[in-house]
C-alpha cells in the first residue's frame, strides 16, 4: 500500500506496476475520483475543517483522509472517523497519547508522507524526525497503525515498499509491525 496525490496516471501506473504496489490516490473532486477508479486505483477524499458538512455527509461511505497540520485538524480526523491521518506533526509536535488512543479506537491509520520530509532543509528535517520518533512511540503504546507512504506528487518520487518499511523500523516500529500495517491497510 502506498498513498500518493492525484497526478498524471500513465507514469504513475508504470512505476507502481514495477513495484507491484497497490495505490491509494488522494482526490478532492468527484472527477478525480472517477479517473482513479477507472485506473483501478483506490480513491480517498482529502477533507479538512473547512469542508462543508453537507459534503462530509455525501462522503460518509467513502474513504477519507485529513492532512493534520495542527491540533484542530488532528482532532477533526478523530471527529469524522477518518481512515487516514496524514502528517499529524511537522516541525511542531501536534500529536499526543490521548490522540493516539482515539485514533486507535477509530481504526485510523497515521501516515508519514515522505515527500514532505524530503522538501525540508536539514535543520527542519531533524525536527520532523524527532517528532515522528515520538509519534511512533505513542502509536506503539496505543496500538495505532502507522505507515510511511511516498506522498508523492510526481511518479518519480515513489519509494519502494522495502525502503518505506525500513524507514518505519528506523523510526522505532518493529520489523513485523511495519510489514503488517503496510499489507493490512489496503484491505
Amino acid at each position: 500500500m502506498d498513498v500518493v496525490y492525484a497526478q498524471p496516471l500513465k507514469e504513475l501506473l508504470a512505476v507502481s506496476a514495477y513495484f507491484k504496489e497497490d495505490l491509494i490516490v488522494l482526490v478532492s473532486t468527484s472527477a478525480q475520483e472517477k479517473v482513479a477508479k477507472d485506473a483501478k486505483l483506490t480513491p480517498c477524499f482529502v477533507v479538512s475543517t473547512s469542508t462543508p458538512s453537507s459534503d462530509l455527509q455525501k462522503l460518509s461511505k467513502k474513504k477519507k483522509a485529513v492532512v493534520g497540520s495542527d491540533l484542530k485538524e488532528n482532532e477533526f480526523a478523530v471527529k469524522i472517523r477518518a481512515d487516514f491521518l496524514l502528517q499529524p506533526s511537522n516541525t511542531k509536535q501536534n500529536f499526543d497519547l490521548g490522540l493516539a488512543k482515539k485514533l486507535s479506537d477509530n481504526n485510523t491509520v497515521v501516515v508519514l508522507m515522505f515527500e514532505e520530509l524530503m522538501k525540508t532543509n536539514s535543520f527542519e528535517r531533524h525536527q520532523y524526525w524527532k517528532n515522528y520518533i515520538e509519534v511512533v512511540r505513542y502509536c506503539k503504546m496505543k496500538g495505532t497503525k502507522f505507515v510511511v507512504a511516498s506522498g508523492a506528487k510526481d511518479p518519480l518520487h515513489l519509494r519502494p515498499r522495502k525502503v518505506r518499511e525500513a524507514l518505519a523500523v528506523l523510526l522505532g516500529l518493529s520489523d513485523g509491525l511495519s510489514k503488517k500495517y503496510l499489507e493490512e491497510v489496503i484491505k
Partner: protein
Amino acid sequence: MLLLIFMKIEKVKKTITPLSKRERKRYILLEVLNVDVNEKDFYFGFWIDLLSFFGSKGLAEINPRIVLFKGNKAIIKCKRGKELDLIAGTAFIEKIRNKKVIINPVLTSGTIKTLKEYAKID
C-alpha cells in the same frame, strides 16, 4: 656504524584475523531506476545524501562500501545489523547529476555470489 651493520632486521609477520573474529557484513543489491548513471556519478550521489542524513558517525557505523557497479545495478557492502539503516537511507537519494532517480533495494544477502547470480552479473 659497525653496530648498525650487525643489527638484525626482523621481519614483522602479517597477522591474519581468523574468519570467526572478522567483522560480519551484509551485501545489498541496489537497482538505479529511471536514468543511466556511471559508477562515478552513483558514488558521489550515494555518499552525499547518506552523509547528510546519517552524519559522519552514523555512516561510520554502517560502514557502506560500493563493491560492484554494473549496468545500473550496484552491490553495496555494509555492517551486519545495519542493512535496514542503509536501505532506509537510500530513500533520501533523490537526484544524481540533477536527474531524478529511484533506488530500489532488490535483495540482501551474506555473500556476493548470491547477489551476482540473482542479478545475472558476471
